[in-house]
């Protein structure tokens, strides 16, 4: 049981706990907080895998921007606890088994696949340098990268149009 394994299990435990808590909690703020916990845990895992840039971005963008937006909106709408209505019998009865089935399938297909089995263990010492990442981003993936900027622009416009009051 090497140190990395310990760290992994700790972080994984935190992540899963957060995810479960997201479901259990009835107040959106608490769900949001548990989601943030998950994200931070994942960032830790990324660091463990040696993807430090992604880890940082994960926290800065996800934790620092997106989730803040969520909390901001929750506060803005002053969302209370969710009431226990049940209009969708389907979701109630078919939901769990299906979700479990899909999870099982994904797990089985990823883990059980020869390809995944053949993969070497994620080596933390081989840090993918941010330099290599950026090089790739600006050479091979430059068009998608530019496109994302358009995407964001559009998103901004959409958000503004949606959010402004009619007057």
């Amino acid at each position, binding site marked *: 049981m090497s140190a990395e394994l310990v760290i992994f299990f700790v972080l994984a435990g935190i992540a899963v706990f957060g995810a479960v808590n997201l479901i259990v909690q009835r107040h959106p703020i608490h769900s949001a907080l548990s989601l943030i916990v998950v994200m931070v845990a994942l960032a830790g895992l990324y660091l463990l895998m040696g993807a430090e840039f992604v880890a940082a971005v994960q926290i800065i963008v996800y934790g620092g921007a997106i989730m803040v937006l969520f909390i901001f909106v929750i506060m803005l709408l002053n969302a209370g606890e969710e009431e226990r209505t049940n209009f969708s019998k389907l979701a109630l009865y078919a939901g769990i088994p299906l979700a479990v089935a*899909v999870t099982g399938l994904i797990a*089985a297909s990823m883990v059980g696949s020869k390809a995944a089995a053949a993969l070497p263990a994620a080596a933390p010492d081989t840090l993918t340098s941010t330099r290599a990442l950026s090089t790739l981003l600006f050479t091979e993936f430059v068009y998608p990268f530019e496109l994302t900027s358009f995407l964001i622009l559009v998103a901004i416009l959409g958000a503004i149009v949606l959010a402004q009051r009619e007057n």
Partner: protein
Amino acid sequence: MPILEHLWIIPLLPLLGSAINGLLGWKWPNKIVHSVALSATGLSFLCAVEAVREFVANGQQTFRREFFDWIVAGNFRAGYDLQFDQLTVVMVLVVTGVGFLIHIYSTGYMAHEEGYYRFFCYLNLFMFFMLTLILAANYVLLFVGWEGVGLCSYLLVGFYFLKKSATNAGNKAFIVNRIGDFGFMLGMFLLFRTFHTLDFTAIFARAGPLPSEAMGQFGVLTVACILLFVGATGKSAQIPLYVWLPDAMEGPTPVSALIHAATMVTAGVYVVARSHVLYLHAPTAMYIVAIIGCATAFFAATIGLVQSDIKKVLAYSTVSQLGYMFLGCGVGAFSAGIFHLMTHAFFKALLFLSAGSVIHAMGGEQDMWKMGGLASKIKITFWCMLFGTIAITGFFPFAAFFSKDAILFAAFNSENGGKALYAVGLLAAVLTSFYMFRLIWLTFFGAKRYDEHHVHVHESPLNMTIPLMILAFLSLTGGWFALPALLGGKDYFSEFLAPVLGSGEIAGLENAHNLELTLSGVAMLAAIIGLVVAWRMYAKDVKEGKSEGLHKLLYNKYYVDELYHAVVVGPLIWISRNVLWKVVDVGVIDGTVNGIASGTTAAGDTVRRQQSGNTRSYAVWVLVGALLVFAIIFWPILRPALFGGVW
């Protein structure tokens, strides 16, 4: 600009003219309309001439070019490929030249008609398709032209679409042609199946070395040729599919002249001549062609004897002349056939146009029994008509003398039953000269059988008479290519066509020249006989007697139409009304459609409930979909993962 390199221009010009007139002409005065049409046709005529000049300048090398792909599927390719060889030269000159003249004529003839622009639009369109037909370098493109001219003929025959008879005639022409085209298509399919291409050059190159199929043997080539010929009978009005042509006279006279005499109806002959290589390998097919042609020539001539409608007479004479052409092709004298085609184009166009001019003069009267004594009134028309008649009856030195003689000569010398063919052909020649001179006498001589107070006869304007004169000149001189042959020299025409069609010389024939001379003499004699008989019967003014017996039979065209109606059309209509309509359409098709509709509605009703608008149930549906997708994608991985390779 070298036209030969841009051969597509020749057909394109009429198409442009047609498009312009068809789209914009309705608001234009006649002047602009016909100037557009004329310039289109005239230009394409000039282009054709230029193309011919270049062709000759290049030492008459067959020019062939693939301009663009049209259909490419697997190893099948049908491109917009045009080709230009001696045969094309003849055809293209005839079509554009005569076509141009008839356009000019039409400006006068149609001057006071409704839908002037429509007429010229159709006419140009026809020119386009006809040129496509004769320039085509593969059967598919040729078939495009083939169908296109059929369409134009339909449109133009039914030009006066307010007249029931006209529309019926149009339908008849179209439907009868469909039957022929069916055969033609089958022929094409067979050819493709055999040679894996529909390119002329390729097919002929591959067919050349094949062994010629024996007489009475129905090999692939024979069947293909017969099928092609079925198409030809449809298009060029041979037995048994000739019935549409006489009715097609419902169309305006220029149309009859251009389409139903000079160009379109000769398409069949052209096709046979074009694929002569195949025919030479299928003697059976050739024999059938010869017999059908000969029969038609005689049969139609007999009907022509008694018709009273001036245009009907000419129509039947056209049919019989076409029969001559097929006879020529059938006995292997393809060049002779084409030769007759050309001369016939000249004099038959001339005859029709003059007939048109007569009708114009009579103010729309077509019944010869209501004419008579017009010679003094309309001199130019009379003389042109006379020229045409002499030409068709084959007096020396007019066109048909040479062409028809060449055919009869070839028929005489052809083996198995050549003599019989010759005899029938000769008889047909007699009949021809009889009914033609009958027409002349009834129309231009004798007492006036019309009411002068109502009808005031007048000569046609120049733009109608000038084409007449030109055509008259052509039908006088058109045959002189073969003049030297008569004087013991060689026949320039067949000489010219030899590279394509092979020399029409009959091998191993001693003193062919003298024989030919005698035969021409006999032909002259036949013509004179006809003339005399006609003179005896109609020179003195005659009343229209009531017809009975043979006359009645002939007058009613052997009741062929009635026969067809009883045998084919009637049952067809009965079946389509009582079976196809009442059972199949109402029962099966409508039932299916309504069933589908109601089924859809029912399904929609049931499915609609899922469209609850409840996001969570949607989520579950998405989940189901994802599950399936995963299961499908990862099945190979999953099977061991789930069942541990038990399966």
